[in-house]
């Protein structure tokens, strides 16, 4: 038994020492390497940038030759800058990457057995704008690993490769919301060219793909798709109708507002909620009566979005919210109070109590009396105590008493 324990002690001790040495050596090596690279970079980067802005043909000649160790440094400088510049400078940086053999290395990397090497190679080919690798990248769209497919598609997208558009659109159907977000981002970045393809493929997509497609159309903000989106307001699926409302709101096309306002009467609450939200973005004042009705909706999200939309409409919307203060619907009254408070209207009216007697003050008293009657008097109570003007404190106290607020009503 003791022999076993002794062996265990020696083994664990050796492991401990081994680990400690490993940690120290790895850290020393990594820090030494990073320091050397940083020093070389400080020295080489200005020369590389001088070459980029000049008219010399070869970067290697301009640098007086590049050793194997320096190649990594030069490559990282080129990759950093190639993402930030456009036009001639970008072309020269891309050409330099090619001259250093990086593009060929990346192309070989696409054949690697390690998925992360394939993904990194695809990404760098995109950065380098290596058009001659477009076919290799297109084949990577069939890679079994989603990360590689997405990097390859992003690279093709960055090159403006139309070959990537359709596979990317089809990939919107993947169940991972994370993949969808990234693909949608790539497609959005490609802009106008993807719209036609997106609209064409739409009927064959899954519901999730359709929703992502509509979001992309909203983010691209092209008025060309407005009519098509309006037609989606009649789609059978409630989420499609809801996202179409959202996209029309994002595009901001004022002509679509009446159609979106119609959706406030949709039987499905997510559609009504999105319609209200979109109308707030469109600031369509014709929808104010409809939104005022929607503040009484049985569903919380519809009420909240409709009240928020009214608040975003400015004066006319705030006036509509004031009329809701004595609405028979309890929920509508509460939403109206909240929005008027958040818009600063309640505080404005309270300040008006300190002013001279006149229409402004009477309007304030009338509105605050209605507000006190809703029972939502947290702010009134607070100012009744802390307001610097004793006249205002008295007026607020009087208003609350008149409203005969029952004691202990929770706010």
């Amino acid at each position, binding site marked *: *038994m*003791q022999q076993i*324990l*002794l062996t*265990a*002690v020696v083994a*664990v*001790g050796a*492991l*401990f020492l081994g*680990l*400690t040495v*490993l*940690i*120290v050596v*790895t*850290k020393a090596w990594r820090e030494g390497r990073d320091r050397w690279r940083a020093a070389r970079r400080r020295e080489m980067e200005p020369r590389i940038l001088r070459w980029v802005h000049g008219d010399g043909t070869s970067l290697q000649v301009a640098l007086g030759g590049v050793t194997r160790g320096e190649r990594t440094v030069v490559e990282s400088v080129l990759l950093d800058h190639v993402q930030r510049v456009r036009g001639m400078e970008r072309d020269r940086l891309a050409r330099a990457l090619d001259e250093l053999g990086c593009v060929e290395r990346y192309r070989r990397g696409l054949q690697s057995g390690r998925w*992360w090497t394939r*993904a*990194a190679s695809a*990404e760098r080919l995109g950065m380098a704008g290596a058009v001659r690798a477009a076919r290799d990248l297109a084949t990577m769209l069939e890679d079994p690993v989603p*990360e590689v497919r997405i*990097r390859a598609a992003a690279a093709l997208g960055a090159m403006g490769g139309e070959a990537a558009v359709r596979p990317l659109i089809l990939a919107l159907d993947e*169940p*991972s*919301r*994370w993949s*969808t*977000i*990234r693909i*949608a*981002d790539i497609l959005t970045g490609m802009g106008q060219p993807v719209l036609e393809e997106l609209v064409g493929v739409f009927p064959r997509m899954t519901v999730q793909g359709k929703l*992502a497609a509509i*979001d992309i159309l*909203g*983010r691209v903000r092209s008025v060309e798709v407005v009519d098509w989106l309006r037609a989606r307001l009649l789609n059978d699926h409630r989420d499609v109708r809801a996202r179409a409302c*959202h996209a029309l709101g*994002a595009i901001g096309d004022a002509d679509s507002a009446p159609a979106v306002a119609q959706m406030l009467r949709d039987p499905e609450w997510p559609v009504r909620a999105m319609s209200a939200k979109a109308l707030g973005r469109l600031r369509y004042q014709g929808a104010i009566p409809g939104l005022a009705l929607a503040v009484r909706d049985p569903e*919380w999200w519809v009420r*909240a979005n409709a009240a928020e939309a009214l608040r975003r409409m400015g004066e006319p919307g705030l006036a509509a919210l004031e009329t809701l203060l004595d609405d028979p619907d309890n*929920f509508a009254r*509460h*939403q109206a*109070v*909240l929005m008027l*408070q*958040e818009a*600063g209207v309640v*505080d404005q009216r309270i300040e008006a109590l300190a002013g001279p007697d006149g229409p402004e003050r009477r309007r304030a008293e009338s509105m605050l009396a209605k507000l006190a009657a*809703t029972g*939502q*008097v*947290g*702010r009134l*109570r*607070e100012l009744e105590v802390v307001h610097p003007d004793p006249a205002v404190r008295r007026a607020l106290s009087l208003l609350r008493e008149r409203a005969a607020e029952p004691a202990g009503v*929770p*706010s």
Partner: protein
Amino acid sequence: MSWIEIATRAVVWFNYFVLVYFLLLNTLYLGLFVVSLVEIVRFLRRTFFSDDRQIMQSDMTWPISILVPAHNEEKTIAETVRSLLMVNYGEFEVIVVNDGSGDGTLARLVEVFELRRIDRPYKRSLPTREVRGVYGSLVHPNLRVIDKVKGGKSDALNAGINLSRYPLFCSIDADSIIEENALLRVVKPFMERPQETVAVGGIVRIVNGCEVRDGKVVRVELPDRPLAVFQVIEYLRAFLTGRVGWSVLRSLLIISGAFGVYRKQDVIEVGGYSIATDTEDLELVVRLHEHMRRQRRRYRVVFVPDPVCWTEIPNSVRVLARQRNRWHRGLVQTLWRHRSMMLNPRYGGIGLFAFPYFVCFEMLGPFVETLGYLVVLLSFFLGVLDLQFLLLFVAAAGLYGIFLSVAAVLLEEMSFRRYPGWVDLTKLLVFAVLENLGYRQMLALFKVRAFLDVVRRRRAWGRMDRSGFGEPLPASADR
């Protein structure tokens, strides 16, 4: 047979038991370390490609409510909220719940963020103590503060859930700071598998010793006090080798209350946070497991080692004792409350593996350890102490403990490298050794006492002395 013979035989049998226990426990720890090592390498490869910007900008990213329960957090609350308002995320709201603070927590919030009372209607999905008022800010429209009667952290979190608008919520301690991109990273598992993910935890690191400016950790350094450095090592081991491993095995029983994200609907379905235990975070996760398994739903509870939450830890033995007492009480209460899961095949790996592990090693481990020390004394008095065996056993146990701590340092060095200096690394390695010479034994005693407190039905949260992020702690403050 005389009583001396009986005692001698018992001591011998106990020695065998301890040996088997030791072997089993350390084999499990080693297994967890290997699993964690593999997972961290995989994680680093996956996150080599950063896509934080895309998550932030997308309309498809779920909006999130950040809940901050606060009780007497006057010193740190403003910095915490400021850091939260600066996080990189698309659509989010911050809800601070002032849980009956006796200090100036609410006044500080009102002053710094220009709060005013608002009358916000909300649905009471979960029962809570009385809410005195809701405050909003015209300057920060996504900030809300709930002022309520004291009901404990669970009650405060439940009030926050009631007021929250969004489908995900993140619970954060008021003495904690999350990194700018932490939220984007912690919601990633929800984006990857939206139907299955119910809860995700991030890594909690120690802010003591670091420099905090404007709600951000701007310089990372190890604390000066030995007690705090021991806790750094402990946290590294617990998060990098423990939680990563349990997460891979789909048996993660705890998501730290300091930083975790949950799907609101699921939490409401199980009744929210429980006020019946002292560690609401552990109990909630166990209850979620229980509920999901009973419903036969496909689900996952995940730990992500990258999104970082910085938190303040106890600087004195007194406060540490209180904190660990509460943690261990909570563990015992939770395991007892859900005892039907123990060795129950209905709960899969949780019932057959994780639960027995927590009962046998986490809950009872400190007892076995303390009993071991007593048995050594007893053996000595009985004259049956095999000194050579004892020394070898202590050496093996100590070295193994050191090995596991150094392994956690290795994981840190090969992955996130938050402590970049050589001085910090040397300190970590030295304290990984020293930790086994007193600190570990002290924790075992705290836990034994906590167990006895549960038996005696003693409950207290335990005050945590805060020094605040901006101000250096006076040397004599909490000795």
